[in-house]
């Protein structure tokens, strides 16, 4: 990157470090931080949407919809979230391929599951074997985003359901007395008021979401954990201009600090937002 990096063997001290930290592979590490951030920015609103749908479904008067909602809300309590992550990535992939298989190759005779194999026709493969590398990476990332959204949607549904229950019942009854029907009560009275009650839970969820991002590594995405392992491993002089021993401990120390700072800043900002929003509200935590 810098001009003085032309001959790494002659470098020492700070200039060696500057050159070392700006090699092409390290650039990949820095890019993967952007991957994490974009995952957060895409997942948070999607999960909120999933959660809102789940919580509304759990309150539905139509029984099957209510059951779907309640199961969605309840299931994450009993089962480790990592199991969901590992499950959904394969299940979603196979689900998509199965649907495409039904559409593109309707006259395929053989069964899709043959012993230990899952076989769909060539046209149904996702992504197509002919597509370039970046399509594969984007597809993997997209699967990860959907998985995160489903799992955190269930958490968010939990929080939102609690918040909906926390809205004083008298408010809803008053609205009904004024002649609003169910839908109007929901959208005009319940939803605007529930956010205040949901905010502490949702801020908690945001911090949890940040702390869940390293699990991207398990989903096969080349994220910061992947690059930290990759770059930290012992490098011999034969293969690289910057030989070093096993430095993984330092890379992971870096990641540890990165996450500590990230969650700490988030918590402080969210606490401020929380104080600001609850100003003048009739709750215990509110400031006058």
């Amino acid at each position: 990157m810098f001009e003085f990096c032309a001959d790494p063997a002659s470098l020492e001290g700070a200039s060696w470090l500057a050159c070392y930290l700006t090699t092409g592979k390290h650039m990949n590490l820095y890019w993967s931080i952007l991957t994490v951030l974009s995952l957060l920015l895409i997942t948070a609103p999607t999960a909120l949407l999933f959660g809102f749908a789940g919580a509304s479904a759990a309150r539905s008067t139509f029984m099957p919809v209510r059951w779907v909602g309640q199961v969605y809300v309840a299931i994450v309590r009993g089962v480790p979230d990592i199991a969901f992550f590992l499950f959904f990535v394969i299940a979603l992939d196979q689900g998509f391929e199965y649907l495409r298989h039904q559409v593109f190759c309707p006259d395929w005779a053989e069964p899709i599951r043959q012993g230990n194999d899952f076989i769909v026709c060539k046209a149904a493969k996702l992504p197509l074997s002919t597509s370039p590398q970046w399509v594969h990476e984007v597809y993997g990332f997209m699967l990860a985003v959907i998985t995160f959204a489903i799992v955190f949607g269930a958490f968010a549904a939990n929080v939102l359901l609690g918040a909906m229950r926390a809205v004083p019942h008298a408010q809803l009854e008053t609205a009904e007395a004024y002649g609003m029907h169910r839908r109007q009560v929901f959208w005009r009275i319940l939803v605007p008021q529930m956010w205040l009650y949901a905010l502490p839970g949702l801020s908690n969820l945001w911090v949890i979401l940040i702390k869940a991002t390293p699990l991207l590594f398990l989903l096969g995405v080349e994220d910061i954990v992947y690059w930290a392992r990759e770059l930290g491993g012992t490098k011999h002089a034969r293969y690289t201009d910057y030989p070093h021993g096993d430095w993984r401990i330092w890379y992971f120390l870096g990641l540890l600090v990165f996450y500590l700072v990230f969650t700490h800043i988030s918590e402080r900002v969210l606490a401020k937002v929380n104080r600001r929003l609850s100003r003048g509200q009739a709750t215990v935590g509110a400031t006058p």
Partner: protein
Amino acid sequence: MSCLTTIQDYALRSIGIGKRILPTTDISVCEQFTLIGSGLIWNVYFGVLALLAGFFLACILALGKNSNTAALRRPSEWFIFLFRGSPLFIQFFFAYFAFLALKKAGLVPWLTSAQAGALLVLVFNTAAYSAEIFYGALRAIPKGDVEAADAYGFSGWKKFRRIVWPSMLRLSWSAYTNEAIFLMHATTLVFFSGFPAWQQKGDALYYASYFADKTFNPFVPYPILAAYFILLTLVVIGLFGLVNRRLNKHLPSNQRQKIKLKLNLIR
């Protein structure tokens, strides 16, 4: 091969007793049930030991954080912040490579194994989360109780042991039950985070993902794993409910703390 011989072969496979080779072809549902259940031994091992050790450490940390002496308060605060503010996954990775470095220096070589090293991380982690819960409960103990204890001449260790500690536990038990459940769930991370599973002796999720890889069918092993964990969760709730009953024994029934399952503490 009947299911009974499968159970004989694989029921204790995760601790190295039984058949060495894992099933590779024609994997039956029975084999998946047995091996995933066998892996659960490790989840229970990590969970129970981390809870036991973490409980005492958490009590000390909570008292430390509540202390007026900065020399006691600061370290406790930092410990809690460090372990609650960073992902458990990264903590595992960092700890593993730190233990590797120690091993190279000739110190505590046994810590690089999951059974010891990962357990240590889990103990510290759950201690930090529980300490925060206990600290909240310490602040919530009714002033009158402590003043009454003072009036009766309680002080020092006796006051803590007879008055403060039981109240703290009673007030925090609901949240602590949740912490125990999520600790059980967190134990599934161990073998995905650098700590090696020697001779394929892994935990429940390790075997579940092994089967998902081999059969390329996630719809059997993961629901089995889910069933086991729901069962484990129910056992935890049952046991903690017993303790909760004992902690609330002296109170009239309308003042007792109920265990509320909340989703406020995952890593």
